[in-house]
């Protein structure tokens, strides 16, 4: 009985997510390395720390050096908070109210145009690319398969 009990137990401990403190440490390590790399880029071509961290974490996951269970609990929690984390960057505008007073309507109009343009242009460009993939290279465009 005892040995039978032990087998599934070791299996479940392997599947278990890493402790949150370990997951935080992985994020901190990735951010630390990224913050060392970021200043190496010239000011004319800035690569912010989160861009590098995003790429590093993706390749760590893709190469199975870091497994999903090592990072996903903390990562999903951070993503669930993301709208709240944007609040200070929105309120930051309080320091630039004079710009908004001078050009507010123009800025909001440009944002409205930009949003619609990005949506439509990206969607049509992609439709073209998918058409080329299907009709020129004869590759499957079925996402599900």
């Amino acid at each position, binding site marked *: 009985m005892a040995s039978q009990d032990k087998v599934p137990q070791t299996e479940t401990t392997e599947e278990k997510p890493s402790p949150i403190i370990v997951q*935080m440490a992985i*994020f901190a390590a990735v*951010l630390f390395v990224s913050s060392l790399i970021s200043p190496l880029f010239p*000011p004319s*071509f*800035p690569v*912010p*720390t*989160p*861009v590098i*961290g*995003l790429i590093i*974490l*993706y390749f760590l996951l*893709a190469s199975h050096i870091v497994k999903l269970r090592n*990072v996903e609990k903390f*990562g*999903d929690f*951070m*993503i669930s*908070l*993301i*709208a*709240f*984390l944007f*609040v*200070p*960057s*929105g*309120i*930051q*505008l*309080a*320091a*630039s*109210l*004079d*710009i*908004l007073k001078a*050009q507010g309507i123009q*800025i909001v109009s*440009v*944002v409205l*145009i*930009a*949003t619609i*343009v*990005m*949506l*439509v*242009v*990206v*969607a*049509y460009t*992609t*439709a*073209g*690319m*998918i058409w080329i993939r299907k009709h020129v290279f004869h590759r499957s465009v079925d*996402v599900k398969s």
Partner: protein
Amino acid sequence: MIILTAAPHMAVWGKWLGDALGTNAAGAPAGNAVFGIFLSLLVYLIGQWLFKVGKGFFLFQPLFVGMVLGIFILFLMAKVFGTTTAEFYKSAYKPGGDIIFWFLNPATIAFAIPLYRRNDIVKRFWLEITLSLIIGLVVSLFFIYGAARLLGLNDIGIASMLPQAATTAIAMPIAAATGGNAAITAMACILNAVIIYALGGWLVKFFRLNNDPIGAGLGLGTAGHTVGSAKALQLGSIQESMASIAVVIISIVVDIVVPPFAAFMGLK
């Protein structure tokens, strides 16, 4: 000190509140962060509540309400303390706001996780996705630049408008590096989401974007950030996967495309 001399009639409670908020001392100590953190949580939760009570009215998006209400409260408090909104923001709100803002770093790199979960799609379509986003963004940038010039924005305003497709934590440093105002860019990113939430479904129908589900997904993720992928889920799971991929990839594409574009257009 500025506050006390500006409003001497409120010296007593002004000094007490000023100490608590950290507006009395230059080089604010750590305890003052409490106000910024509390205000951020308060306005965001009010936004969530309004969104629920208002049955999802588009202007009641929690983040948008949080931004407007937070600025309004700071504006009123600055009036009470007899200082400018910008000054009051810097001394009272920013220490706490910066702490919350810092957590955008781990939250942004956490987007690698949903991207990796859809790795099968990424591997099969990476060429189409990256090419579409690069070409789509370059074409969009010309439109955005043209619209901004026509409406008479100055170079700072234009440079603030260009990186808005990226997620806020990435768009802001790029805006600053190309001579823009990071706060304006952050507002643009928030407005993108408000606009896509309000008009996304209608725009998809009007321009018949859903004829190509992959395109509709990438477009919604690019234009509306994470709200775009929530909107894409209403169209279907392919659209949602593509939108979540686009939110991440477009941020990297913005980093590669926008600084050279700004230099090419002679900004900064």
